[in-house]
């Protein structure tokens, strides 16, 4: 890796989760702007998060949806 920046790696997941303080966000952004290898891995982490979410999403079946509607206690 180009920079050996352990701090940057430790900050990356919380950064994507949106839970860093303003100061930490600034620090992360400054570092990413100055370090292409980390910037690239950051884009990878964001894409991976998205890819996992989409790949793991299985829609509900119409049969189950109908069964759940059948569990209603109130009349429509």
């Amino acid at each position: 890796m180009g920079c050996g920046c352990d701090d940057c790696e430790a900050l990356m997941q919380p950064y994507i989760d949106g839970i860093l303080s303003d100061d930490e966000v600034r620090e992360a952004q400054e570092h990413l702007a100055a370090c292409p290898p980390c910037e690239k891995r950051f884009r990878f982490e964001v894409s991976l998060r998205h890819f996992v979410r989409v790949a793991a999403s299985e829609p509900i079946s119409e049969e189950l949806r109908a069964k759940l509607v059948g569990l209603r206690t109130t009349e429509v």
Partner: protein
Amino acid sequence: MSESEPTATEARRLAEESRNRVRFEEEALELSDQVYRVARRLVGSREEAEDLMQEAYARAFRSWHQYQPGTNLRAWLLRILTNLNIDRGRRTQRSPDLQPLEEGDYFLYNRLESTLPDENPDEERVIERLSQNAVVDALADVPHDFRDVVVLVDIGEFSYADAAQILDIPVGTVMSRLHRGRRVLKKNLADKAVTA
């Protein structure tokens, strides 16, 4: 007026309660697809997920008065669902002891990149080394305590606080399990992607 006959105020209250109940059931049903997407990854099979959904919705419709209007209904439904999942005895066996994971966050990236001939590939091409099945299998292989948190936060897009409430664990535990769970997931992905 006889005592068995409700007063006008009482009748209004009952009518309002009945309207609220109808609205509650409609809102819960509108969320069924989103709840299912999380439920499906909390358990091993589609059948299990479908059974759990029906049990959870039946219980939610019975206990609707315990829901506080204005709070997160999707989180409330998933809390019922995860409790039922635990009641089914899933947690009677402890998670196996985990191997130490020394790999850092970049382990998966480095591993995938090494399977490409290019010197400096685009990150989209690196992601393409993964298949949808690899993701599903890699997630299923994460020990359940960690997987629950990863599924709620990364697939259900719940906040740490909501995930903590759903699973009835402290936020700090959500964070440590999330950290660990994501690393295990990436390690599993790395194993599957390279052999694929």
